[in-house]
């Protein structure tokens, strides 16, 4: 059972920092997803683990052994590339066998492994075809097959589903989850920009933020999917996870203690069930609430509907608040609502997130006690 450990890793390219202060442990057998906006360095981090990039500072340890100087092929990893990177002039069988022949394994071992992988991925009828004669989904399975036969300690996936169409993507997502369960002991590190993939596949999510030279660590938050959803530790995480995005409102602390925070937000009084110890009276804060937690119909807040997105059973209202500048998005069932109408809103105190002036989140208490949207 393999652990991958990244310590104090910096990576700069030609003086431009790409990764900063990365510290991460990926436990044995875990499905770990790297997610973040483009340019955050998630693919670079993956390639760093693979040995295809060189770090500026820090250590990579696999099973406690420092592998900074170990060549990629000796790290016992397998990688599935975004473009699959199958050898175009070789058949699927030869593609899968190539790495094993490089390792000088006996022919019967190779044949057996290839057959096993082909069976798991239903590649048997395609073994003698060349990649050019395969569909996108088939090529992807062949690329996964090439990884499986190496029996690696860690699988690396670089946005493997991004080249597939939507229907195939959801199907393959499920198959990947099944594969992870079947292969049991191997860890999987998976890079994606798609939140749905991250939330549904991951045991652990690593959220990376783009490095704008600000000196902040590249990793914004690490945790289980629902932890990132319910307890984002900073503004960036709160704003990234969840679609549509969380609404952010500026405000000031009126009173704060370990059990609640009272604040004035856009002139309205507001109470959040968060641990406010550490917040001074009058301090500037940002209050966050997800669209799906706003209660539309009654309440002290009001907003004018500027746009409606109807999605079937529910829809999203785009609202302009009283001050004429702040906008919000709220999820609603489809009552008879029209653009231009004013609706009243409740922001349940258990559903609010509070962030201090540095963007750090205050710990939420009883996050699940709000009316289901």
């Amino acid at each position: 059972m393999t652990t991958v450990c990244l310590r104090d890793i910096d990576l700069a390219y030609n003086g431009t920092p790409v990764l900063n202060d990365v510290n991460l442990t990926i436990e044995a057998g875990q499905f770990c997803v790297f997610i973040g906006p483009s340019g955050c360095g998630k693919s670079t981090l993956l390639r760093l683990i693979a040995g295809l990039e060189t770090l500026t500072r820090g250590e990579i340890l696999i099973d406690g052994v420092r592998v900074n100087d170990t060549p990629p092929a000796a790290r016992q990893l397998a990688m599935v590339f975004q473009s699959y990177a199958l050898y175009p002039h070789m058949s699927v069988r030869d593609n899968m066998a190539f790495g094993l022949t490089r390792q000088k394994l006996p022919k019967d071992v190779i044949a057996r492994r290839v057959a096993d992988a082909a069976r798991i991925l239903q590649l048997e009828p395609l073994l003698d075809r060349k990649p050019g004669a395969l569909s996108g989904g088939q090529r992807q399975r062949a690329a996964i097959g090439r990884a499986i036969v190496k029996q690696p300690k860690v699988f690396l996936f670089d946005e493997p589903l991004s080249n597939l169409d939507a229907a195939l993507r959801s199907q393959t997502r499920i198959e990947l989850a099944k594969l992870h369960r079947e292969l049991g002991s191997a860890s999987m590190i998976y890079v994606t920009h798609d939140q749905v993939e991250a939330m549904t596949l991951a045991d652990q999510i690593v959220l990376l933020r783009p490095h704008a030279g600000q000196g902040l660590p590249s990793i914004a938050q690490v945790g289980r999917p629902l932890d990132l959803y319910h307890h984002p530790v900073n503004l960036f995480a709160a704003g990234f996870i969840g679609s549509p995005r969380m609404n952010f409102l500026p405000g000031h602390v009126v009173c704060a203690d370990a059990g609640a925070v009272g604040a004035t937000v856009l002139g309205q009084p507001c109470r959040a069930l968060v641990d406010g110890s550490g917040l001074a009276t009058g301090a500037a804060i940002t209050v966050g609430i997800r669209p799906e937690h706003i209660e539309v119909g009654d309440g002290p807040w009001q907003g004018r509907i500027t746009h409606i997105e109807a999605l079937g059973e529910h829809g999203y209202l785009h609202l302009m608040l009283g001050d004429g500048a702040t906008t919000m998005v709220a999820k609603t069932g489809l009552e008879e609502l029209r653009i231009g109408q004013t609706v009243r809103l409740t922001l349940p105190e258990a559903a609010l997130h509070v962030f201090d002036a540095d963007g750090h989140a205050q710990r939420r208490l009883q996050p699940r006690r709000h009316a289901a949207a």
Partner: protein
Amino acid sequence: MFHSDPRRWRLPRGASIAAFSFLLPALLLIGVFTLIPIVYALFLSVQKMDLISGHHRFIGLANLRYLAEDDKFWAACHNTLRYVSMVVPLQTAIALILACVLNGRIRFKRVFVTLLFLPTLTSSAALTMIFMWLFNNAGVLVRLLQNTLGITINFLGDPAWALGIIMLMNIFSTVPGLMVVYLAGLQAIPPALYEAAMLDGAGPIRRHWEISVPQLTPITCYVMTMGVIGCFQLFDQAFILSGGDGGPDNATLTFTLLIYHFAFKNYNTMGLACALAVVLTLIILCATVLLNRFVRPDGVNA
């Protein structure tokens, strides 16, 4: 997929060794047979060298002075200028027109291109001989002219015509290659541009003039540069047509032929040959730079 950007791709240690071993054979051959000769040419260009004794002495710019006063040098200049001014525009224009025609809805494209490629595939020697026979005093064209128009032209022996024959030969043999370059360029132009022009009422010639020509300007620049460089390097046809002496009356004397004369006809003008070679290189470099500055567009590609 910026991480696929090969400029960002770095290999683990040992890559430098691999890089150099890959480069070594090429660098070795280039070093010995291109770089050193150039340096040697520069050195010899300021020497007077006797090939028999191997003795050489430094004479500074005397070689250049000799060239400036040499009739043959100026004859070569005149010939080359005449040649470039006719051949480059003609071959560029014909190649462009052919490419535009071929890019349209023509069937049997490959057949046409193959047919047209014949002169390009033929060695300059063979092509020269074929043309020499064609324009021979006892040949078909001369006889035709005599019978129909009653005039006799000694194509190969008349200084006024000899260079013209070479020009004709060269245009035939270079046009197909340039045409293919233009074809590739034309295929990169989005068809939507032509359709928009058509909707605006532009006829085919106007469309090509307003769209193809401007879009192809970088390629035209390249084609003309290559054309000029090629013209300055003319040797084979001049040598074979004139039997090696650049006649008749220095009418087919090119720079390279003159260099050859200096290098091998006499035993003590090797330095002169190298001086002329250096001058030739400088002229080509200047022409290239000038042409790039003159024809360079201000970013036309949509």
